């Protein structure tokens, strides 16, 4: 199939339909819609935790490790805090870590990819060797080193997530730049004297956006798992702040006393990662049916 035959793939004036329409319009994809709804639900928790929580998240009480009840929907933890309310408040931290982390990765990765791809030559070589080094360094070990150097905190985790995911965006953008650089419309624009900045801004970047969008959701999913891993190693967010990772870690100590404790944050992580993944996959199918991730 030739790319120019697909209206969604046509650059410049050919791209009439908005991105939102391309994602949700036309024939509805039930999986995409369901995962979008679940995501919205978690986002609502994150945006307005006070509205959904039934207790203050850090309020210590005398009822330790209580089973779920009318007063405590998901039971209480080892301090007598309400697990449900902590899970609700934890959603915000998850989105902040994943969101800001991915934002950092994009803020660095996209320009690096653009420059490397557009300039080529030794600039490309140097930038790509840096990416190689980041990729060759096992990411969990790298995360531990960064958090060790900066001390365990929310900022450290965000920074770590940001750094380890730079190559994902840099490589993706570089690849699409390389693919588009030789396309006719780019060569044509250049021939009529368009500046580099204008070329990148008007032509190359918009074409990479669908792929970047897909990558954002998939990377956020991995970021949530990275937070859980760091928490398991004791390098999570500082107490008493509730994050799903630190809750899961704490709950591991009471599998027999309080089996429901481990369930609440575990299921939340599971669901969030699951929906981010399916949403990302759905996006990819809608936006770019021909290209699958490799």
């Amino acid at each position, binding site marked *: 199939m030739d790319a120019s035959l697909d209206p969604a793939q046509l650059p410049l004036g050919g791209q009439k339909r908005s991105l939102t329409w391309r994602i949700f319009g036309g024939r509805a994809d039930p999986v995409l819609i369901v995962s979008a709804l679940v995501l919205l639900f978690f986002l609502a928790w994150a945006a307005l935790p006070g509205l959904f929580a039934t207790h203050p998240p850090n309020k*210590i009480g005398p009822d330790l490790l209580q089973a779920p009840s009318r007063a405590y929907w998901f039971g209480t933890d*080892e*301090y007598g805090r309400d697990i449900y309310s902590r899970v609700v408040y934890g959603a915000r931290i998850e989105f902040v870590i994943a969101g800001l982390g991915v934002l950092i990765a994009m803020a660095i990765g996209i320009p690096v990819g653009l420059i490397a791809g557009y300039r080529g030559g030794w600039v490309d070589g140097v930038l790509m060797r840096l990416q190689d080094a980041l990729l060759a360094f096992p990411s969990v070990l790298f995360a531990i080193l960064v958090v*060790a150097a900066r001390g365990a905190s929310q900022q450290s985790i965000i920074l770590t997530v940001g750094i380890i995911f730079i190559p994902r965006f840099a490589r993706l953008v570089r690849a699409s730049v390389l693919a588009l650089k030789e396309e006719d419309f780019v060569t044509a624009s250049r021939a009529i004297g368009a500046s580099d900045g204008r070329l990148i801004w008007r032509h190359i970047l918009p074409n990479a956006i669908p792929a970047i969008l897909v990558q954002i959701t998939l990377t956020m999913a991995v970021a949530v798992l990275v937070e859980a891993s760091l928490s398991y190693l004791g390098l999570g967010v500082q107490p*008493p702040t509730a994050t799903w990772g630190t809750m899961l870690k704490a709950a591991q100590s009471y599998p027999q006393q309080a089996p429901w404790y481990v369930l609440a944050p575990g299921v939340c992580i599971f669901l969030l990662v699951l929906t981010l993944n399916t949403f990302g996959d759905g996006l990819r199918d809608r936006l770019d049916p021909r290209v699958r991730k490799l």
Partner: protein
Amino acid sequence: MSEQARILIQEFFSGRIDRRQLLTRAAAAGVSVSALGAMMTTPWQAMGAAAQDGGATGDLVIAASGDVDTLDPQVSQLLLYGNMLRRTVFNTLVNYAADLTYVGELAESWENPDDTTWIFNLRPDVTFHNGDPFTAEDRGRRSILLRARCREGDSLSSRLTNVESYEVIDDRTISVKLAEIQADFLDGLTQISIISEAIAADIENNPIGSGPFRFVEWVPNDHISLEANPDYFIDGQPGVATLRFNILPEPQVSITNLKSGDVQGVLSIPVTQSTILEDDDSVNVINVATSSIPLFEMLGQNNETIRTNARVRQALAMCLDKNAIQQTVYAGGGIPKWSFVGTESWAYNDLPGYDYDPEAARAILEEEGAAGLEFTVLSIQGYPDGEQAATIWQAGLAEAGVKLNIELQELSVWLDNYLNHTYDVIWNTFPGFADPNYFVSLGLQPHLTDGWTNTEAAELAVSANQTLDQAARKEQYDRLQELFVEELPIMVIQETPVVSVTAPNVQNWGINSLSWVLLNDVTIDAE
């Protein structure tokens, strides 16, 4: 010779050692190869029940929550090292009895003819695991104690810094002359493992002592294995033929290993995780009250208000709900208290301290111009009791309008801040100790030279350890404890229990009130 050779041959026939080990051990024990050969030809059943003499049968595998840092007994400071190696592989001159009075181990008896002289009479029948005899000096050069601290960097050698000279009177007698009177001199000796001279230089790889177990191997992060020393001088010890420690950092995983039969004991698990096991017939829970104390050190460099104002510290203490901590962190176990001295100790002064009363605390803070105080407490990752105590304190402080931030740091980072006093308040925990001077020298002295400007306390801290009469010492410690609780340079939380879990067929598992796990008498029944 025949006894040693016989045991060796029995071990060989029972498959516990191979031929090469047999020959090297025999050589070390001074048994000639020909004599060994002669004995090998006698039917081994005819050699008597030597294996039963020792009573050491069965293999015991124990889960330990962490690894040792080194094999060198004079370097390692870890409680785990003490449990796994110091008291199994090595002996000390003096050790504790169950009531924490001193008993001889390698020393049979001792006397102090004057205030600064100690004369030890050594046990005659002791050999090191490599066959070297235990004597007062090695080839006329260094006394056993001097050898034990032979290297300058060794942290434990500070226990002997007060020694002016050693005099070897004869093979079995050694006299130690101290520069100053030192009341806790014997107490320090309980930490000095006596090692064989021949391997002193190689102790990091080859920990040869004279204890009930011989070192076999250490695979870092994996396991440490020991085997019974059949020549051990205390009858009935050791109780098992082999002892192996598997390093399993996750307490829940240790418990599952115990339940699945992969290990037969777990050195220690958090108290809160043990309550569910109390009703479980498939395991034994051994919960022992100890004099270990978690505490908050209050005199950090970073917070002027807290460091310089004792009334503020008292107000902060009123926000610490010790009852809640006891329930939440220690499952109701242990004894809340304010003094640093063990509640069972001769020196303990039972002071009332401060009741939980955030409202009163708020009033005091307002009076002192410290309303709306905010500070940070540093605690250590992987020590849930620190995090939990801080979290409960945080809630109490919030009631009094004080904002507490908690920062969990890696052990190495925490230690840096602890040593440099770069903190507002820091959580710390001291293992149990018998002599109050242990805490005074390690916990109080660093503050007395820095943040705690109290000349009376500073004088008492020194003079109490230069007094040999126990009644007179107690008087001084009584006063020191009063000052300690009143001015709160350090806020003690409570004494904590220590919990081991074992399989039902494990007997004589010991934990003393210093939170040491004692394994030399442990036996395991065949199932």
